[in-house]
Every structure is written in structure tokens, then in C-alpha cells.
């Protein structure tokens, strides 16, 4: 599994960090998404998918 994020779409809602702070963080400067783990292990696959589906700006894709 691979996570990709698009900072230009991100609106800084923080939903991804709320869902899994091991995978995502937010920039101190403008609150946009910072991807911490590109290839999550099996334990984090479900939360990676949930973060992608909850993102209000569709800035996260999981493939």
C-alpha cells in the first residue's frame, strides 16, 4: 500500500492527524498535511484508508 498526499488540495482540517497521527502530521506554518509514512504496515492500512475517505478536500489517495 502506498499513500500519496496533495498539499495544494489540503485545507488543513486535521482529519488525517485525528485518524492516525502515526501516518500524518500538519505543517506548523499553514496546517497542510505532512506525510510521515509513505508505505504503511498492515496494522495501519485500515486507518490510512479511513483518513483518505474522511479527508474533506480529497487530498489523500491510497493505492
Amino acid at each position, binding site marked *: 500500500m502506498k499513500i500519496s498526499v496533495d498539499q495544494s488540495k489540503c485545507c488543513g482540517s486535521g482529519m488525517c492527524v485525528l485518524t492516525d497521527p502515526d501516518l500524518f502530521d500538519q505543517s506548523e506554518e499553514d*496546517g497542510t498535511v505532512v506525510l510521515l509514512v509513505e508505505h504503511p504496515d498492515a496494522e495501519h492500512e485500515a486507518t490510512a484508508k479511513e483518513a483518505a475517505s474522511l479527508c*474533506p*478536500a480529497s487530498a489523500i489517495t491510497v493505492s
Partner: protein
Amino acid sequence: MTELISAELPTERPNPFDPPTEVTEIREQARISRLKFADGHLGWLVTGHHQVREILGSPKFSNNPEKHHLLDRRFQGDVPEDKRKAEPGMFLSQDPPDHTRLRKMLQGQFTVRRMNQLSEWIATIVDDQLAHMRSLGNRADLVKEFALPVPSLVICALLGVDYDERHRFQEDTAKMLSLDSTFKEAMDAMARIQDFMRELVARKKANPGGDDMISDLLATGEPTDEEASNMALLLLLAGHETTANMLGIGTFTLLQHPDQLKILKDEPEVIDNAVEELMRYLSIIHFGPVRTAVEDVEIDGHLIKAGDTVLIHVPAANRDPEKFTGNPDELDLRRPASGHVAFGHGIHQCLGQQLARIEMRIGFAKLFQEFPDLRLDVEPEEVPLRTDMGIYGVHSLPVAW
């Protein structure tokens, strides 16, 4: 396709915690239906969860008020064109790229990490307010003594607004949100709050270096003074009315659902989910949001044409059985409630949602820890409901302990 047409938006709520029965019936027949707006425009009513997300997440819909047909009868007739326009800095009513530029200036202030760092400070504010409530004897209006002061104190301190000056915005906020206000009354109230915020911005510019969000915003040099004062106004209004109403009607709900309240008391770890479930179940934004299509778009087999205005029904969407399994009309603090649209969806999703979550988690938890025998001090049908306001809730909540 035969379409369901409503002549007006049903607003009557036979049960204070449920969406209007007629809206639920509409959703079960058609998750997208037609709705007549006050100016005669035949627009759309969207009640399905999936459809709400699709529209709020789509760049094909605008949030520019100049494009919207109006539903609210107050704002019909001779509304001057310039009053329809979003004012500089009012990013909630703007589309990209203006919205993106302005919201980005604030996003860094509302991150999950920053809000978590405020937990201890918010807990102190909640403790102080509960001590104040106890000092009043054994009964009080929970809205006046707890639900409204806590988020007001928090947002005032964050923005650097003197809480002692709350008379300059609290009453006028209520006038702006009252569906009984005339257009002129609402606009006059807004103009008074704008004057207050302009003065505040001028004071902070004259005394730079303050430890608050408005000073930080001004220090970036990015917004104009007018933008900064309107952005601050938006944060002030959004920051105290919404959370206050969730704390008020949320407490009423828990008192009326003793089995659920017992879960909250017995299993304190349920609080994070309990807040999401209360948000889903209550959905206090009961009037809008509204969007207008900027190009033709097909949603669920319905052709929404460019220029058509769409009313999003948050309470109906948050009870959609296609999204929320089990019985979505039941309050269940253990239900997986994530994915609700109580904070909206799309690029306008609530900027302060992580702050609101922390205020509610700490607020509800401490309220029932400190007042385990809290009870309603009137008959439930005597609690005055905010059916006359743009944001739902209770006007007051008499409680005893």
C-alpha cells in the same frame, strides 16, 4: 424521472432532538429532491449523506452568496446588490483562490497538535466555570452559566478579545442569527460587530507583539486591515455560538437519555466517540449550507444545472441509514460515528473543528464528573428550543443538582 417537489423547507421538529419528520420522509423517498426557494427559483434539497459529501466536495459548486437564490424570506425583495457580496476576508463565503489564500493564513493556528496543547488550559476554564456554577446554589441555567461562557472565554483569549467586552458581540450575534430579525436588523447588528473588530485590529496594530491569533495574523503582513477584521469576526462568531449550542443541547440530550449518560459516566474513555455521536445525532446546523452550481453537474441521475441553488440538509444526512448502520435515529455513544457531516465537508469544512472537539470532550466529561446527579429542573417540553435561530440548540437549560 419523477421528482419530488417541496414548496418550502419543513422546519417543525416534533421531537427536539430529531430532524423535522417531513424532511426525513423526503430523504426516504428521494435523497435529492426539488425545493422552491423564496424568490420562486426551483432549486434542490439534498438529504442523503453520500450526495451531501459529493456536492460539498465538488469544485463545480460555488459558495459565493451573489450566486445563491435565497431561501430565507427575510432576505427577499430589495436587498442591495453590494450587501449580497462577500466582504473582504469573509472566506467562508468565498471560492478559491481567495478562500484558499485567506484560510491558509489561519490553518496553522488550528492544527490538531496546537489544539491538543490547549487541553490543560481549557480544562482550567471549564473547572473555573463549574466552580462558579456550584457557587450559585443548587440550580442554574446551564446555557448562561456554562455552555455559552466556556467557548466564549476560550475564543476571546485565543483571539485576544477582552472577555469583559462581550456585550459588544454576544447580543448582536444573536440578532444576526435570529430568523425573526429583519434584514436591516441583521445587517445593523453585523455592522456593530464589524466596528468592534476594526477597533480591535487597529489597537493590535498600534501595539504589536501580542500573544494571540489576531496579533499573529497581523504580524504576517499578509491580510489587509479590512480582511483581518472580517476574518477575526468570523472566528469570533463561529468560535462561540456553535460549541455553546452543542454543549447546551448535548447536555439536554444526555439528561433525556439516562442509559447513554450512564455509559459516559461508567466508561470515561468513550468521550471522544461520544462527542462525534452527539455531533452526528444533533447536527445543530439546521439551515443550510447552500451551494450554487457553476456548471451543469449530474448527481445520482439528477441534472443540476448551472445557476441552480442547492440546500444541504445536514441533520437529515447525518441520520441517513445508507451511511450509519443500526438505527441512526437512536443515540448510541459507542456507534462508529466518524464520517458525519456536522462540521461540513469539502474545502469549507469547519476550520475550528479540532478546537470544538477538545472543548466538548473536556466540557461534557467534567460537567458530569463534577455534577453526577445533574438533572433537568423543568419539564422537558418547557425547554425553549432554538427553532427560530440559524444554529439550533436550546435558549436556556434550567438544571438542578
